[in-house]
């Protein structure tokens, strides 16, 4: 099997914060239509990697290629313009605004007709109905008031809103940084379904997660991150979860890789 061109690729990414090295010549590739899981210890640099891929930070060195050609994202909006939609670990919500406001931030719906064209009036009702429906799909039925500011939601409800947003609007790549960390059993399950629905639409997904059973259930390939770089990529069908955990914690070294420390 000759490898297809990666949709999104990164080479030698470096990111330093003062004394701290978060990415240390890290490589990365995402193939079209796949679900790529990224796993690694806490602080391995997974979030930093996807922040670099989605334009939220600018790496000190290295290059990013989209469909084989180098790109530079100066802001998350640049990446979004290229079709990359991300759920950050910090969720990136405006705490004082309502659920619907947050769902549609930056892509608000206007009223039809004159009110919308001339007065640019928002179509509150349509946005709220849409939000309610998306949350119901995720099983978040405990939300009592759709006008609630996001800061008053429970941890899991808040994460649900962020995931629903990315899944609903994702166009060419969807990146999910620990999307189920705060979610309940039912809600996590629904997110996994959602991920598979998105992939079925032909959109590749990057999934960061510490939940091995979930990773091994949905991923096509697993990128193991360790100490700021990619240690190896494994096929979940040929490796067990124990292998993956052993690699990422440093308890075992995958073949053909010299233990870095």
């Amino acid at each position: 099997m000759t490898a297809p061109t990666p949709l999104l690729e990164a080479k030698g990414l470096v990111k330093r914060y003062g004394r701290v090295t978060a990415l240390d010549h890290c490589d990365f590739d995402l193939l079209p239509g796949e679900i790529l899981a990224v796993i690694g210890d806490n602080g391995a640099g997974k979030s930093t990697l996807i922040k670099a891929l989605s334009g939220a930070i600018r790496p000190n060195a290295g290059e990013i290629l989209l469909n084989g050609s180098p790109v530079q994202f100066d802001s998350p909006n640049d990446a979004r313009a290229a079709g990359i939609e991300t759920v950050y670990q910090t969720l990136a919500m405006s705490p004082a605004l309502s659920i619907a406001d947050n769902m549609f931030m930056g892509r608000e719906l206007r009223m039809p007709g004159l009110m919308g064209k001339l007065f640019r009036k928002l179509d509150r009702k349509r946005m709220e109905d849409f939000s309610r429906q998306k949350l119901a799909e995720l099983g978040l039925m405990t939300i009592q008031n759709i006008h609630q500011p996001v800061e008053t939601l429970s941890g899991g409800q808040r994460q649900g809103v962020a995931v629903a947003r990315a899944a609903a609007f994702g166009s060419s790549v969807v990146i999910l940084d620990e999307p189920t960390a705060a979610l309940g059993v039912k809600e996590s399950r629904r997110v996994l379904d959602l991920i598979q629905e998105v992939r079925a639409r032909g959109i590749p997904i990057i999934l960061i997660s510490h939940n091995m059973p979930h990773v091994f259930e949905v991923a096509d390939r697993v990128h193991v991150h360790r100490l700021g770089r990619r240690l190896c990529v494994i096929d979940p069908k040929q490796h067990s979860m124990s292998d993956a955990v052993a690699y990422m914690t440093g308890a075992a070294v995958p073949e053909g890789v010299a233990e870095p420390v």
Partner: protein
Amino acid sequence: MASADPFEDVVKSRREEGFAEFEPTRKGLWGRFHEALHTTPALVPLIVLLAALVVFGVLLGGKFFSPFALTLILQQVQIVGVLAAAQALIILTAGIDLSVGAVAVLCSVLMGQITFRYGVPAVAAVPIGLAAGTAIGAVNGWLVSRIKLPPFIVTLGMWQIVLAVNYLYSRNETIRARDIETQAPFLQVLGTKFTLGGAVLTLGVVLMLAVVLGLAYALRSTAWGRHVYAVGDDPEAAQLAGVDRHKTLMSVYMLVGFICGLAGWVMIGRYGSVSPSATTGVIGNIQAITAVVIGGISLFGGRGSILGAFFGALIVGVFELGLRMSGADPQWTYLLIGVLIIAAVTIDQWIRKVTQ
């Protein structure tokens, strides 16, 4: 350990679920009132305002409740009202603008001097003045958004610069009301009076109301308004979520500059003359910030309503006129206004607390 238990299967099939529902906990008028306070935060300063009106009405009797006195309040808060609307916008983005008053004065001076020094017709001088205000706003916005300087410092510097330019450019000359009236009446057009059911209003008052209501609409019902709140609430999050922080900030600062220009035009209407040493240049900023904070907008950004700021301006206006009319001497007036401002916000807090 039971990790082989396929517990997730329980939730694999979807069941019909209803949204969680609880019995409404409070009913009747009091419940509605609570509800209203929660959805419309500007109601709280409005209540304080009405309370202040009642108190002074009782103290001063018919003299205070005359159409003359009540419309006088509106006329006296015209300028602060417009500046407070501008200031509220900036504060919603978690900024602060110390230059609003100075920009207003400079714009009024520009409108006057351009007409009188260079003979440009007033109908052209006014737009030039407004453009100048917008340009100053753009500089502020650029420094805040691109160079990422703290708004306090940018506008503090701009305040001093604008005031000095204002004195230097005008050569400390006042253009007299009589001259404007005869040679360029358009400059004073916002001072035009008309009666509406016994109350004497000016076009300047109408403009103030239009600015406040227009901004209230834009902030609540347009995407731009949502972006302003989001940027003020958590700029990082807003940017990650897809808001163009730079564009939003630039639009806010430029709009604020423009509104300050309008305030300058209102000043000519109200005072008749054009004077570079108008005090608004020196204390307009604090007055506007005070109105905004009394109106319940958080100085940390992202929370509050512009109508609140307007009520805040009116509250101070009522206190000042009420105390003056009751003949308190100036230092006692200052002292009492200090006490009343604290009292107003205490009542505000109290209302919020009991209606939690």
